[in-house]
């Protein structure tokens, strides 16, 4: 029996663990090692260079620019996305016309809204980015055509071609594609808050805005916090990379105005053939990601409310 048990455990764990070790753990471990070498990625000989890559990184203007953009994304994206999502979810669940025997009610058609809002979440970020790239097209895109149609002919921004606007265009795309997910998530959370809490508060003369900040938000806090981490990782990771890579000129331009850390890692490794230095920037990104998660967890720590 015991013998059979261990054979079973080993048999079942071997394949998944081997795959995971070869394609995930091993590359991660290697990348830390490579970050101390001058490996180009093209030839197999390279040397240890100590902290040279790291000091080079600290003097690298493009690194700092990328870092700045990544941090900006990691701060603004969760703020706007979660803010909008909380607002919409509150409107969906509490903004409805009062019905008999209920102090608060959801709006009519809330099921429809949730279905529609969730649409972008199932679409590939590539599709979304391509769609918006064309919508942002200064001469024939949807946005400038709309501006023209409403009489703002003089206002025809270059959108992705304007260094001051380009990063915000990318941000809009990421917000557009993620808000719906959190509306649905927060709605589920809000629906589980007992209605008597609102009734009691409203009877005591509290306004709707007060009930949002005193009842809804505290009871949803755990979900908001994990949403915050989730959005931050998204802003520092694959989604931000994909949106910038697909949408912007260069990519990363114009004039490095939209370059983000993962994109810079990718370009350094596979365009500039500096694999060693690229992994150094990757380690930098790892540190930023860890710091972000730690800060959010620490700032967001509150007494857990049970209800």
């Amino acid at each position, binding site marked *: 029996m015991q013998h059979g048990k261990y054979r*079973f*455990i080993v048999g079942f*764990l071997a394949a*998944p*663990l081997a*795959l995971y070790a070869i*394609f*995930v753990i*091993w*590359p991660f471990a290697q*990348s830390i090692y490579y970050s101390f070498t001058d490996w180009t*990625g093209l030839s197999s000989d390279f040397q240890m260079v100590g902290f040279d890559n790291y000091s080079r990184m600290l003097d690298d203007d493009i690194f700092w620019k990328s870092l700045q953009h990544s941090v900006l994304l990691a701060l603004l994206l969760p703020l706007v996305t979660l803010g909008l999502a909380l*607002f*919409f979810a509150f*409107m*969906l669940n509490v903004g*409805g*016309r*009062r019905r008999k025997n209920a102090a608060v009610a959801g*709006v*009519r*058609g809330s099921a*429809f*809204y949730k279905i*529609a*809002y*969730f*649409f972008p979440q*199932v*679409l*590939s*970020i*590539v*599709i979304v980015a*391509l769609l918006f790239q*064309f*919508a942002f097209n200064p*001469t*024939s895109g*949807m946005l400038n*055509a*709309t501006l023209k149609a409403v009489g703002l002919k003089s206002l025809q921004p270059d959108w992705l071609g304007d260094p001051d606007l380009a990063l915000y265009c990318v941000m809009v795309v990421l917000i*557009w594609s993620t808000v719906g*997910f959190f509306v649905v998530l927060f709605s*589920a959370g809000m629906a589980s808050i007992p209605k008597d809490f609102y009734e009691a508060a409203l009877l005591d003369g509290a*306004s709707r805005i007060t009930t949002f900040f005193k009842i809804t938000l505290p009871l949803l806090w755990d979900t908001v916090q994990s949403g915050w981490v*989730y959005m931050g990782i998204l802003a520092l*990771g*694959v989604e931000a990379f*994909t949106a910038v*890579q*697909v949408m912007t000129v260069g990519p990363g331009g114009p004039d490095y105005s939209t370059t983000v850390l*993962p994109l810079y*890692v990718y370009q350094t*490794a596979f365009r500039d053939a500096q694999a060693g230095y690229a*992994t150094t920037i990757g*380690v930098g*990104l790892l540190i930023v*990601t*860890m710091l972000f998660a730690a800060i959010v967890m620490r700032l967001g720590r509150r007494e857990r409310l049970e209800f």
Partner: protein
Amino acid sequence: MKVTETPPAVPAPRSPVTKTDAPAGGPAKSSEGKVLNVFSHGVLIIWAVLVVMPLLWAVMSSFKTDDSILSTPWALPDELHFENWSRAWNQAHMSDYFLNTILVVGGSLIGTLLLGSMAAYVLARFDFPGNRFIYFLFIGGMSFPIILALVPLFFVMNNMGLLNSVHGLILVYIAYSLPFTVFFLTSFFRTLPTSIAEAAMLDGASHTRTFFQVMLPMAKPGLISVGIFNFLGQWNQYMLPTVLNTDPDGKVLSQGLVELATSQGYKGDWSGLFAGLVMAMLPVLGAYIVFQRQVVAGLTAGALK
């Protein structure tokens, strides 16, 4: 469990605000409710339009000529130009991209669910030295930036001769889907009752047989949720194939679309690009509409845990 949950096809008709059926309560309060009701409908409709508009615009544009896309972006197509669709499907190789994507995602989805549930079952149900360590090794993979591993991964794949191959891509997809799958299914297996598995063992079933014939069928709801999550993630995957799969013939859908967009930039075949985009959107949107409830449950399950 229910098989399908059809979403309401049409939004509930909005009754005019003038109709007064406010419940008992002070007049001041009911007017506050009314203003709020109008306001909330207002903002909710605006966002719904913002979400749906670009998608409708893409569908519309896919039936227009290049000329009218560029000169009158908002006009309806003069006639339905289906040739855009056939051009994208044949000449722009969308059919190949579809086939490649189906192969890769099909293989990796089956592999992910099989290997993920095997690992999760052992980790959830058996005590052995190193159990916790292996569990956290898997879970840790969720928080690392993939891009960091990507540079060495490229060379690992290169050395193993797996670069630019369907099976290589499948193995990598499985490996990178394991952390979440193991995390999700471990907590799922823990919630299942132990008595049935024990009964099966008493009846002489082996561990392996118990797993495949008793535990796996019981875990079906969890497998569906995590399966949908992985399906969408793998279907929409862009970063891994961009780095590991650069062979023009083996491109997956997301790469193919980017390829289409960049090469079309010079040829100016915008209508073909839109047709390709809509083509790539439709299966996912269709699946979402049909399996709406399961999709939402699958995608939000991870964030709620």
